[in-house]
Structure formats: C-alpha cells, structure tokens
C-alpha cells in the first residue's frame, strides 16, 4: 500500500505531542524518555504496576518486574504476533518466527534456531569477533579519540552475524539502514517499514537461490536444510522470516549493549580499573551491565481480558513489555539504580523471560565480553569527550548512537 506521492524517504511524522502526564499518557518515543527513561519508569512504577496510554491506538505498560514476568509467561492472554508498539496496526503479512509465534507453533520454530547459538557454538565464533574488534581499533586508536558508537560498537554485531549467516560483512551498512528503518522510523511510518522489509526479503531470497545451486555450510543453508516436525522442509517464507529476525534482532541490540557498557565505563573509572585488575569479574559485570542498561523492550498484543497485578487489561490494546524497566525495579533488585559490577544475585530479564528467551543471548554475551575486553586491553583509559554529545536511539532498542570518547588519562 505504498503511496506513490510519498516515495521520498522523509518520514511523515504523526502527531506525538509532548507528554505532560506520564502516568496516563506515556510515550516511549518522547525525547525525554529516549534521553533518560529511568526517572520516568520510577514515577510510573510508584503510581501503578500497569499504566495505560491512549497513544499507539491504546497501550499498557507493566512497570514492575512481577507484572512484566506475569505477561511474559502468559501466552494465553498475550500474543507475540506484534512485537513492536507502533502508531498503526496493519494486517500482519511479514512474520519472523519464532519471535512473532505463539504456542503451539513457537516451539518447533525456536528449536531450529537454538543449536547454532549455544555457548559452545559461540566459542567457535569468538576468534573472528576478537579479530573484528582489533581491526576496528587499529583504524582509530592513533587518533586518540573516536565516536565509539559509529566506529566500534556499531560494526561488531553486524559483522559477526553476517559471518554466521554467510553473507558479506561488507554489506553491513545496508543491514544497519534496514534496521534503523524497521525499528525506529517504522514505529511512525508504515511505508518506510514495509519498504525496508521488502528490500531485506529480496536480499535474502537472492542468497537462498544461490545456495540452491551451490550449498554452503552457513546458517542460511542450515535453515534451508532444516525439517519441520513432520519431516518437511521449511517454506521459503519461514526461512526468510527467520533470516529477517536474526538480522534485525542480532544487530542494534548488541550494538546498544556494548555501547551502553562503554558509556558506563567511560564515566566510571573505578569500575574500569577494577575490571582490568580483576578480569575474572567480567562475567558478573556483563550481567550487571545487561541489567542496568538492558537495550530491548518487546511488545505483546492483548488477546483476552485478564488482570495483571490487580490491573484489568482489555483486548485491542498493545503492551509495551519493558524488560529494561523490570530490571530497575527496587522490589526485585537492591540498589536497582546503581551499577554494582560484582552483584551476586542478578535474575535480570534483559533477554526476556519464558518461552521467548532471546535465541541470541549467548552470542550477545560473547560479543559484549570480547568487545569490552579488547577495548580495555588497547584503550585502558578513556572518557567522554566534553566537546561532543552522546545521543540515544529511540523506541524499541535503546543504546548510544553517538558516543564521542577521548583516549588517555584526563589532565
């Protein structure tokens, strides 16, 4: 339904007036939310475990860990068929199994993707990721400064997932463009989202055709060769949907997590020095950085009326499923607003809870660990550049998109 009069790439912004009442009219695309959502979440949580806005055609947001968990576990009343809260709810045409699947279709679709993403599989990919990090650092370290989001964190996940899928790492800029159009601009402009989805689908269809003639041993071929529970090959539509998912879900999520981690370390020399002195602390620190700066907010659609933490929710509404807000709930995490890099108990929900646990969580952890380790080895001292500005992405995935850094000790 592309309107030819709107063929230009400028998004037509629907009316999002500035929020004056967060509790009854929240908007996760408001610039203040994008810049610093934490006090807003605290305000909402103090008011109610589930708040509602009329924006986005009606949307709830659970604000406590408990309410987020209840919804994540409740696949009877809450569907995953739409996983982004947007201004529009067009007919569902492009699914991305298993993230957009509900039971009973979910489990078989997910099981196909799990074996390539186990921790052991990630160990085999790790040397390539270490090399990618060092190739990137080699280019900018001599400058004594860089925009770490544009020149480092942005490129690591996209090259790693391209390597796994068996598509050229040099096409990275194209993938990043599509993801920006789908996850950010697409919230408010359906034409842009549909065009990006079509371009991505055509790209992968070409790679599938190539492999029909010349099979490979990459993840695209793995999916092409997979069989469903009846022993039948997956439809091209299923394979394309899963490939879209892996590309969309595997890139700016981890880009954001690495970026937010470096942002924290740039501002917190004590944590940086401790990680260098006690490298065995890294796994615990990574979990804490994932908790404190969880990048990914998911969505559900209410299918049947129910009650969550005492609050009635009605069908026809979406749910903004904010794992990041759950992870800041002081009822679940003591000192929830502090980054405690040796936090012992940390049941954070950065990768979701229940059946939709992120299929790439082991990949994300490995990439974060390697990216921070290699950075600290080469650039042990760094700080935010006071002459620059840190900016954050809007909407579904939150992380730094500009992250100007100066290297070396402050004078």
């Amino acid at each position, binding site marked *: 339904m592309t309107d030819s009069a709107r063929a230009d790439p400028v998004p037509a912004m629907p009316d999002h007036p500035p929020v004056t009442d967060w509790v009854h009219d929240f908007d996760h695309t408001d610039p203040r939310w994008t810049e610093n959502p934490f006090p807003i979440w605290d305000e909402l949580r103090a008011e109610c475990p589930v708040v509602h806005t009329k924006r986005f055609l009606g949307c709830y947001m659970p604000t406590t860990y408990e309410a987020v968990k209840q919804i994540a576990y409740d696949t009877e009343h809450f569907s995953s068929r739409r996983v982004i809260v947007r201004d529009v709810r067009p007919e569902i045409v492009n699914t991305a199994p298993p993230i957009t699947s509900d039971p009973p279709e979910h489990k078989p679709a997910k*099981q196909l993707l*799990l*074996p390539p*993403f*186990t*921790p*052991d599989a990630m160990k085999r990919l790790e040397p390539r990721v270490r090399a990618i990090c060092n190739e990137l650092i080699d280019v900018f370290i001599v400058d004594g400064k860089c925009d770490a989001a544009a020149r480092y964190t942005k490129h690591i996940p996209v090259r790693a997932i391209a390597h796994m899928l068996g598509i050229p790492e040099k096409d990275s800029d194209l993938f990043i463009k599509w993801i920006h159009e789908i996850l950010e601009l697409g919230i408010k402009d359906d034409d842009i989202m549909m065009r990006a989805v079509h371009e991505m689908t055509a790209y992968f269809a070409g790679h599938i055709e190539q492999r029909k003639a010349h099979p490979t041993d990459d993840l695209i071929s793995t999916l092409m060769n997979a069989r469903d529970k009846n022993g039948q090959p997956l439809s091209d539509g299923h394979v394309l949907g899963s490939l879209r998912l892996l590309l969309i879900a595997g890139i700016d999520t981890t880009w954001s997590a690495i970026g937010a981690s470096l942002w924290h370390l740039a501002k917190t020399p004590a944590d940086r020095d401790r990680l260098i002195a006690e490298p065995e602390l890294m*796994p615990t620190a990574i*979990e804490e950085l994932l908790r404190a700066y969880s990048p990914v907010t998911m969505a559900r659609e209410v299918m049947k009326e129910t009650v969550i933490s005492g609050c009635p929710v009605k069908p026809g509404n979406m749910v903004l499923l904010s794992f990041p807000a759950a992870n800041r709930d002081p009822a679940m995490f003591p000192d929830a607003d502090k980054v405690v890099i040796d936090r*012992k*108990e*940390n*049941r*954070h*929900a950065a*990768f979701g*809870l*229940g*059946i939709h*646990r992120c299929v790439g*969580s*082991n990949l994300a952890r490995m990439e974060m660990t390697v990216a921070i380790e290699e950075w600290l080895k080469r650039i042990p001292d760094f700080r935010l550049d006071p002459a620059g500005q840190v900016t954050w992405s809007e909407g579904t995935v939150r992380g730094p998109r500009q992250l100007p850094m100066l290297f070396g000790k402050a004078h």
Partner: protein
Amino acid sequence: MSGKLKIHVDQEKCQGHARCKSLAPELFELDEFGNAHEIGDGSVPAGLEDKAWLAKANCPEIAIDVTEE
C-alpha cells in the same frame, strides 16, 4: 549445613539462559538446544555448595532446586 546438597533443573521451566552453566560448570551441562541439566544425579561435591546456591540465585526462570539430603 550438615547434609549433602542435591540440585535439579526443572525442564518445564528452563529456557536456556545458561546462567547456571556459566557460574557452576562443574554442576551443570547444556544439551544441543542449550537447555541446562544437572550433571549426573545432581549430587553436589564437597566444596561446590556455594556455586550451587549461586546458580539457583541467578536463574531467571527459578528453574533450579537445591535440596539438602
């Protein structure tokens, strides 16, 4: 704390976060889908009790039981 500890991963609850395997690789193993299982009959060797409790305390799905025999 006189008795020996025993661990068990509830397969209905485990979603493969793999936190237990990361924290206590001596006590947990992962299957081909990345879901966790206790090694052997789940008996916790002496000296690894703290790791068993740590794994339980970090499982996002509350899927790990630790019992004293």
